[in-house]
């Protein structure tokens, strides 16, 4: 058994100190599982966390987002002893009703009874990190924490210190996962010992050379409770691999949600993602894409629909170290109530990265006078033969369009809904796979009261 290094304890701050007994208890139980490398990794990460603490607004990357509420909350670590959840409840929470492959997690722990995987071929892994820690230790060791470094910030350190469970998806070379894979993360503070739950899913997705997969990751809650999800996802796309990725964040309106996603792309690989934020009171998403080799392409779409007192912060970073990389970003937000949203998008084009094609657009629609949006494009370009553009806008519903709709008999609310729908729908239209596009369409329909998803909306390319 490993004991805490006294030096680490000396360095702890007031806020991180709370986690010392949690980590010690963790090491005596769950932490005993797995090989030496992972125990060492957790210890190093925890030492770093104690030392660095949570990010503060003095840091440029966190200027617009205070994580004080997370820092101050005395969390209770999620445990495997699950609250009682019925199959019906899970089915209700799933964003889709199709018979897709699915892994279901409750408070970050894999639940076999709710999961269903029908595809199987040699070397394919659709399972949990927890099992892999024991049975696929060597395979895991070559990827895990190699891309999201624990010293990136306090959240990645904390997640890594408590690595325990999450989704581990490995698609071997030259294979196509025909059916989309759903990763459903259900959170609840119900039936736990008093206190607020902190769940820290750790996901690893590897798509082998020339392989193709579609993954829908969703975060949902059973009740309107307070809890925290601190998620880290590492995605590795090998040469010519392609991944269509949809992320739906529908946490409880009182939840904290922090996610760090890192995508590492080899030659000619394609990553298409759509990240949608609907829930949470305090949300921060970091999405970093490394186009490591020539010809890699990424398409990042984002949509955040906020209201009340919500705060949603999306940070993207696209790294173009090699030539002929493509990145296209479209992030759109509709803000109501007193909500606030942040978009910060950094594109880094290295000297070597000639023929880079990088575009970024962020548009915000304010439905209320009390909502605020901060948008911050950052382009750093050190190559000369590149095409890079960026655009940002914050505005209100177009008065002429509103009048046009009303002049045909459409009421104020319906007119606002139609225009909001249209604004958001541009993001849905970018999704190439129909079943995934339908997911987002359904969601928008629900939100903006359109009676049928299919018609009404403009289909196909404009």
């Amino acid at each position, binding site marked *: 058994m490993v004991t805490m290094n006294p030096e680490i304890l000396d360095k702890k701050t007031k806020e991180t100190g709370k986690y010392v007994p949690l980590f010690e208890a963790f090491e005596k139980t769950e932490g005993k599982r797995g090989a030496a490398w992972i125990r060492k990794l957790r210890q190093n990460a925890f030492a770093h966390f104690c030392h660095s603490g949570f990010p503060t607004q003095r840091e440029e990357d966190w200027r617009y987002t205070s994580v004080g509420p997370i820092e101050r909350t005395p969390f209770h670590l999620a445990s495997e002893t699950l609250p009682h959840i019925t199959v019906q409840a899970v089915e209700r929470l799933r964003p889709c009703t199709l018979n897709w492959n699915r892994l279901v997690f409750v408070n970050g722990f894999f639940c076999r009874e709710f999961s269903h995987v029908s595809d199987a071929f040699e070397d394919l892994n659709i399972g949990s990190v927890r099992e892999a820690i024991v049975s696929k230790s060597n395979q895991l060791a070559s990827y895990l924490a190699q891309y999201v470094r624990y010293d990136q910030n306090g959240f990645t350190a904390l997640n890594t210190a408590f690595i325990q469970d999450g989704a581990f998806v490995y698609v071997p070379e030259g294979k196509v996962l025909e059916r989309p894979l759903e990763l459903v993360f259900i959170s609840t503070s119900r039936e736990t010992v008093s206190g607020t739950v902190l769940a820290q899913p750790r996901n690893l997705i590897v798509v082998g050379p020339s392989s193709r997969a579609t993954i829908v990751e969703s975060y949902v809650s059973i009740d309107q409770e307070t809890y925290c999800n601190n998620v880290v996802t590492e995605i590795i796309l090998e040469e010519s691999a392609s991944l269509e990725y949809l992320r739906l964040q529908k946490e409880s309106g009182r939840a904290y949600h922090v996610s760090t996603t890192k995508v590492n792309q080899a030659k000619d690989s394609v990553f298409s993602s759509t990240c949608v934020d609907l829930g949470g009171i305090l949300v921060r998403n970091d999405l970093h894409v490394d186009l490591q080799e020539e010809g890699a392409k990424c398409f990042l779409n984002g949509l955040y629909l906020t209201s009340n007192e919500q705060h949603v912060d999306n940070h993207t970073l696209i790294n173009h170290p090699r030539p002929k990389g493509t990145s296209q970003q479209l992030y759109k937000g509709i803000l109501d109530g007193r909500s606030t949203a942040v978009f910060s998008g950094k594109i880094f084009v290295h000297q070597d990265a000639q023929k880079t094609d990088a575009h970024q657009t962020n548009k915000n629609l304010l439905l209320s006078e009390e909502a605020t949006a901060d948008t911050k494009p950052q382009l750093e370009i050190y190559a000369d033969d590149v095409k890079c553009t960026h655009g940002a806008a914050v505005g209100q519903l177009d008065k002429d369009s509103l009048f*046009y709709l009303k002049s045909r008999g459409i009421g104020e609310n319906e007119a606002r809904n*139609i225009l909001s729908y249209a604004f958001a729908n*541009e993001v849905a239209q970018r999704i190439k796979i129909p079943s995934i596009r339908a997911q987002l369409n359904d969601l928008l329909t629900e939100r903006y009261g359109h009676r049928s998803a299919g018609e009404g909306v*403009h289909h196909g390319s404009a």
Partner: protein
Amino acid sequence: MLEIRHLHVSIEGNEILKGIDLTVRKGEVHAIMGPNGSGKSTLARVLAGHPSYQVTQGEVRYQDKDLLTLAPEVRAREGVFQAFQYPVEIPGVSNAYFLKAALNEQRAFRGQEELDAVDFLETLKQKMKLVEMDSSFANRPVNEGFSGGEKKRNEILQMLVLEPKLAILDETDSGLDIDALKVVASGVNRLRSPDRAILIVTHYQRLLNYITPDFVHVLVDGRIVLSGDKQLAFQLEEKGYEWVRESAAS
């Protein structure tokens, strides 16, 4: 049907309409003509309820209701329709969805059942044929990327679907070639009936070659200075607006 009494209208403190009086009865077609800047389009927009204009004096009665107190959407549901001079582009909303939403709001207001998608599309296709629009326009976003002529046809299409009691055409003929002009005119003529009225705002007489008005009014500097029958339109075409200014002054 429509009674305009001593109407004064300003925009940003500038008075545009300086006392308009006009009566339009059921079944009538009125043409409002006048030089640029005379206030023709302001009149059309005020009747539709455009929020940029302030009515400073006067009143407008429509079917015994005080039109100016009604919200734009209520005016539309009561049967007032304006074909816009510059129709707005609305990306992301299909023509079909937009029109179905509008029609069903109007039907609900009148206590009629909503049309389902199948019935609506049937009606829509029929009317699209009348204005010679390809059915692909149903699924295109409202007016987005339409040519000037296509936008105007789309306005007429909306009018034919919504079947208003009072249709106001704001310079619908401007920028149209002769074929498009004929299509627009035939759409308007199709709507013409004993229980409807039509107000045509235009700079030129040429649309009136295809839609014969019962009355022609000439608006100069915010006032109706001359009214007559269709012959007046021909005189204007021949003699120009200077002639009206002179005869009004004398």
